């Protein structure tokens, strides 16, 4: 126990990095995934096909392979995204490693977000969209004003599952240069061979707490958005 508590700053910092990965990749995949879902139900056939192909490729590829592609293979052929290190975010510089990890997580997770959002859109009766079109709304307006607001309600539970998976998937970044919680756990295990079980449990608790926070906020959203 004291291995973690005597170094609690490191423990907290590592989970902070886990949260950082989750927030950036989560936001990225929500935006990108929703866009892909719009393409998949949209009127342009080429875009529908392209979006379906994207989902097919990234949902069927193990996350580790996506990581190797973005964090190891791309730098080899000259795409290491190091330009991001010159971007100033309130005095802090984002490292190329963090950015590549976020790219890998976003590419992967957005395929699942796309499918979750699409299931929500399908849950809205077709008549709603038809009614919207018949009063003269464009496709974008139909989506924004009629379909998506209803789809969002249906999409909260599956989307929460996708985000919980993303939160835990951030641990893959431990093997790609990010000192997040799982990497910190390995480091503490290496230094304190006599406290392995306690260290493992404390890091498991850290993940459980984060996932619980996420799940409870999703329940709160469900209650808030419930219709009558």
């Amino acid at each position, binding site marked *: 126990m004291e291995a973690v508590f005597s170094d609690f700053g490191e423990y907290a910092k590592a989970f902070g990095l886990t949260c950082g990965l989750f927030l950036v990749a989560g936001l990225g995949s929500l935006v990108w995934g929703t866009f892909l879902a719009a393409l998949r139900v949209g009127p342009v056939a080429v875009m529908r096909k392209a979006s379906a192909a994207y989902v097919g490729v990234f949902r069927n590829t193990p996350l580790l392979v996506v990581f190797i592609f973005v964090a190891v293979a791309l730098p080899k052929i000259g795409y290491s995204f190091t330009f991001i290190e010159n971007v100033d975010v309130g005095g802090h510089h984002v490292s190329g490693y963090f950015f590549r990890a976020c790219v890998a997580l976003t590419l992967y997770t957005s395929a699942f977000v796309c499918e979750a959002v699409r299931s929500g859109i399908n849950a809205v009766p077709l008549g709603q969209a038809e009614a919207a079109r018949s009063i003269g709304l464009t496709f974008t307006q139909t989506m924004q004003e009629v379909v998506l607001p209803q789809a969002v309600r249906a999409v909260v539970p599956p989307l929460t599952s996708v985000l919980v998976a993303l939160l835990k998937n951030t641990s893959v970044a431990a093997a790609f240069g990010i000192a997040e919680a799982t990497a910190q756990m390995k480091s503490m295990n290496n230094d304190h*061979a006599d406290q392995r079980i306690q260290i493992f449990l404390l890091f498991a608790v850290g993940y459980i707490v984060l996932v619980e926070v996420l799940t409870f906020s999703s329940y709160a959203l469900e209650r808030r958005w419930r219709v009558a």
Partner: protein
Amino acid sequence: MRLIRRTKAAAAAVVLASALGSTLAACGSAGDDSGKGADVDVAENAADQFDDGTRMKELAEAGAIKIGVKFDQPGIGFKGAADDEPQGFDPEMGKILAASLGIEPGDITWTETISDNREPFLQSGEVDLVIASYSITDERRKVVGQAGPYYVTGQQILVRSDSDIESVDDIKGQEVCSVTGSTSLDNVKAKGAKPRGFDTYSECVDQVLDGTVDAMTTDGAILLGYAAQHPDELKVVGDPFSEERYGVGYSKDHPEMCEWINDTLTQSFEDGTWEDAFDATLGKSGVDAPEQPTLDPCQD
């Protein structure tokens, strides 16, 4: 005269045949330039030397032993995809220890132990010994036994040949990679570098080669092995800035093993097998065998 000519021809044939033989052998083991290591003399009737009830006696009578080594550290413990058994200084030490029990190298079961599972494997009896670049620390000695050290090394820095980093003082603020969770990574973090952990050393070397990371760090012996693989692109810089004392891990259930390990190590220091093992493995990167370390006395 005729006889002499015939002998000459025969000698030439022998030379040719042996040359051909070694060429063929070289072809057969393509990629394996680490050789078979030093020869060990396997003790005969070894079981008689040990008292009844000791773990050594059990192992000697069984004629088999399970040893955990690293599979991903060139020179220390490395097993390529095409290799039948691991090569390196640690497996050589394993063969010396097994030989003193009368166990042939072929009867050793090599198990890969990664940093995370060395203690659990010893505690559960999955392996009898761990010889896997296993630094002796007080924390580890609380849960397993560690005899030795049989080798003392220190952490160094590997950089690209055109790098400005000249010593450990230059790594502040730089990105330095090693294996996730390793002591080496903690040490450079303490010196102000940004630690970048990877799963294996080879991935880390790749990152140095393509310039994604500024430097790599781990025990000097391993770095020298990689520098030797890419002499034009990589170099090892600076003096060692930590001390790692590699020990032989054994289970706390069998404290009697400590004396045996220390005795066997002392003997290998004296009869030259330790130095042969070093020259055949780590010594290949051009370093001379260091001074033989002083063994810690057994605690109980």
